[in-house]
């Protein structure tokens, strides 16, 4: 049976959700003023339709001709016009240990947060930020009853889990969206050990950005699965876009920031802007990193402490490796062991080379994500020797070895990524045509905040194109059988209006990145999401192990909602 609901994946979903959102949300107030230093000089005039000017570097000149432009959609803020005190104050995430067959109730609700000195209304799972940390043993099935109390329909997608297709959380594909006041019960079977996460698959650009995300830690029965560590820390990296008045509105009928995704200007770890940790001298801390940002790829540096990369999305690497940072794109997960040897206060930072398109330069950008205070007290037991050892995971190597003969087969399918725009303001089109003489492989910062803000999913269509058939996004019709091992070649075409890196995610299956630009990957790990930089050709080998109708898409939320997705069928 061919999948007959491809177009509704996008058009139906977006139309229904946009309509509901528009209908449910109170009208935004009149234009606001912003006089903070983040406001560009000359932009402190009234903006239409409830919009406030997007923050941007005051040293950067405004592109002539777009000074008074606002996105051609309505502005949305949760709880607009309501007193934040009406909503319960959110609190930090709590761990929920679940055994096979256990049930957890999750309420999706509006919460009050204080962020960067502003009291704001956001969303939360059970009033927590992030949502509850669910811990379950490998091969368990846990039951999660979700009740929607927010004004928008929602679902929960169990990211990376090779779950029963009925519970994958894709609206109009695997389930009807959960309307306000309604519930849906997920049976979450967890066949793989590792760190997974859950989030909505309805207007992710809004709901996930407003706090709807949580981790699912699946433990292995093998006590020696990872090397020894003194303790474990969840480390969810995120950003959010704020100005002098609080949260910048989101697009009501369609996402804004469709060209580059909505970069935030306030960094968060575990939903906090001032995350702090303590450690003892010599303590080995296992960090479970998840990037839940809409679009930002982080490069996390652990304050000079020695760092070992251990695992990623769906399990451990073939062998552990020393790294000086952890590069993590939206939706990816990494497990890193870090040994803090030097007493004192150490900053965990995001270290990137940002781009200034106006000046034509790269410049270093370093943001503090968290502070670690390391005491003089020695950690016990002494794990120095064990930490100094890089383990080879024979079980992983043997598992992957079965697939190596297929690494060099011809691709079964080839995709290319590109973008189509229509109706963008002319100055933006002209400026970008000049600017794209060079596009970096990765966009680590929003180098064009105004142009990006003005681009909505109504003007921008991000495209995954089947190179054999020319079919795009929802018109791609792929069909497989359980047991197929499929090689997909993805080319991020740099010759488009605005090329950008894409974190490519496949639901319900696992895959290996076997090579990039023809260079073999020398340390494999099972993935569900992988970065495809601009200009790059990435080969992945997908094990079609899980029957159902599954999504594949870019995990930049605004790209996803600008069309960059398709479904494929895996038959029994």
């Amino acid at each position, binding site marked *: 049976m061919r999948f007959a609901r491809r177009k509704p994946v996008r058009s139906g979903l977006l139309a229904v959700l946009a309509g509901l959102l528009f209908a449910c949300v109170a009208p935004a107030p009149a234009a606001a003023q912003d006089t903070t230093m983040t406001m560009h000089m000359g932009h402190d005039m009234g903006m239409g339709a409830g919009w406030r000017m997007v923050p941007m570097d005051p040293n950067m000149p405004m592109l002539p001709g777009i000074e008074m432009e606002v996105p051609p959609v309505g502005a949305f803020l949760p709880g607009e016009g309501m007193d934040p005190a009406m909503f319960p104050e959110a609190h930090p995430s709590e761990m929920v240990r679940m055994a096979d067959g256990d049930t957890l109730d999750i309420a999706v609700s509006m919460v009050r947060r204080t962020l960067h000195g502003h009291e704001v209304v956001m969303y939360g799972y059970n009033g927590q930020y992030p949502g509850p940390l669910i811990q379950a043993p490998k091969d368990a099935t846990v039951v999660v009853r979700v009740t929607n109390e927010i004004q928008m329909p929602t679902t929960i997608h169990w990211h990376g889990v090779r779950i029963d297709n009925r519970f994958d959380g894709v609206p109009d594909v695997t389930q009807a969206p959960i309307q306000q006041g309604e519930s849906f019960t997920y049976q979450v079977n967890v066949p793989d050990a590792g760190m997974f996460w859950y989030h909505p698959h309805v207007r992710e650009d809004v709901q996930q950005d407003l706090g709807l995300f949580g981790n699912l830690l699946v433990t292995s029965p093998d006590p020696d699965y990872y090397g020894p560590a003194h303790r474990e820390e969840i480390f969810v990296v995120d950003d959010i876009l704020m100005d002098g008045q609080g949260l910048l509105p989101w697009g009501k009928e369609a996402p804004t920031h469709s060209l580059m995704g909505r970069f935030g200007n306030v960094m968060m770890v575990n939903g906090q802007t001032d995350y702090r940790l303590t450690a003892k001298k010599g303590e080995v801390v296992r960090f479970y990193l998840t990037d839940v940002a809409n679009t930002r790829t982080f*490069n996390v540096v652990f304050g000079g402490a020695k760092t070992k990369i251990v695992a990623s999305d769906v399990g451990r690497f073939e062998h552990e490796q020393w790294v000086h940072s952890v590069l993590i794109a939206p939706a990816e997960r990494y497990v890193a062991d870090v040994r803090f040897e030097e007493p004192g206060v150490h900053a965990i930072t995001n270290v990137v080379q940002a781009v200034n398109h106006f000046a034509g330069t790269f410049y270093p950008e370093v943001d503090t994500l968290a502070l670690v205070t390391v005491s003089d007290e020695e950690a016990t037991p002494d794990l120095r020797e064990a930490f100094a050892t890089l383990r080879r995971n024979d079980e992983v190597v043997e598992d992957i070895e079965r697939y190596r003969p*297929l690494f060099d087969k011809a691709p*079964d399918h080839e995709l290319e990524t590109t973008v189509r725009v229509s109706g963008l303001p002319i*100055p933006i089109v002209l400026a970008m045509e000049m600017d794209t003489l060079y596009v970096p492989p990765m966009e680590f910062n929003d180098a064009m905040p105004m142009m990006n803000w003005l681009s909505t999913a109504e003007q921008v269509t991000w495209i995954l194109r089947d190179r054999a058939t020319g079919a795009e996004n929802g018109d791609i019709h792929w069909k497989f059988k359980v047991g197929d091992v499929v090689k997909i070649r993805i080319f991020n075409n740099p010759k488009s209006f605005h090329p950008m890196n894409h974190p490519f995610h496949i639901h319900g299956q696992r895959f290996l990145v076997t090579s*990039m630009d*023809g260079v*073999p990957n*020398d340390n494999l790990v099972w993935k569900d999401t992988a970065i495809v930089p601009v200009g790059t050709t990435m080969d992945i080998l997908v094990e079609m192990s899980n029957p159902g109708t599954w999504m594949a898409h870019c995990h930049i939320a605004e790209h996803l909602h600008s069309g960059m997705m398709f479904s494929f069928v895996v038959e029994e």
Partner: protein
Amino acid sequence: MMLLLATLAFTAPARIDPVPAALFCAVPDDVDPPAYYAVDLVTTKRLPGTGHAEGTGHVTFASSPFGVALAPDGSYLYDVAIQLHDMGKPDAGVLVAWATTTQVDQVQRLGALDESLSVRGQVTWNKFLVVVTLEPTDDAAATAWTGPIALRGMSRSGMMHTMAGHGPFQQELCAKYGYR
């Protein structure tokens, strides 16, 4: 019919069965490095036999568990594979490839070119120049070139330029932003 079956056999997705490691095949080389980021090397015509010489610096990410390799300062960590052609080999001396910043204030030695006029090295800058020089000896410890430049080229990122004073920002004075 046989042709059809044979075609299907090659195009249908494979099904996995345990296979002995001895059957392992290397990853194919049917994917070229990204042409978009390639560095075109242009001759200076200063050396005999280089009048028609050309070359390319193929840029790929260095090995990384994250796919994209970064240096400690967040710059890209690239493998650069230099390949020259249409040139004669020098009678004396050694052709050596170097990378340098656009200010030419720092230099990294990529290595001496081999018999096939190729060499591979690493670069840790986002904007860089590549130069191939004729050196008297193959000195792996050399920190800068001393001989004449035979070919040179610029990373694609060199095409990123200031927009001050022209284009859509014509009213902005270049000097205001440090440009003359």
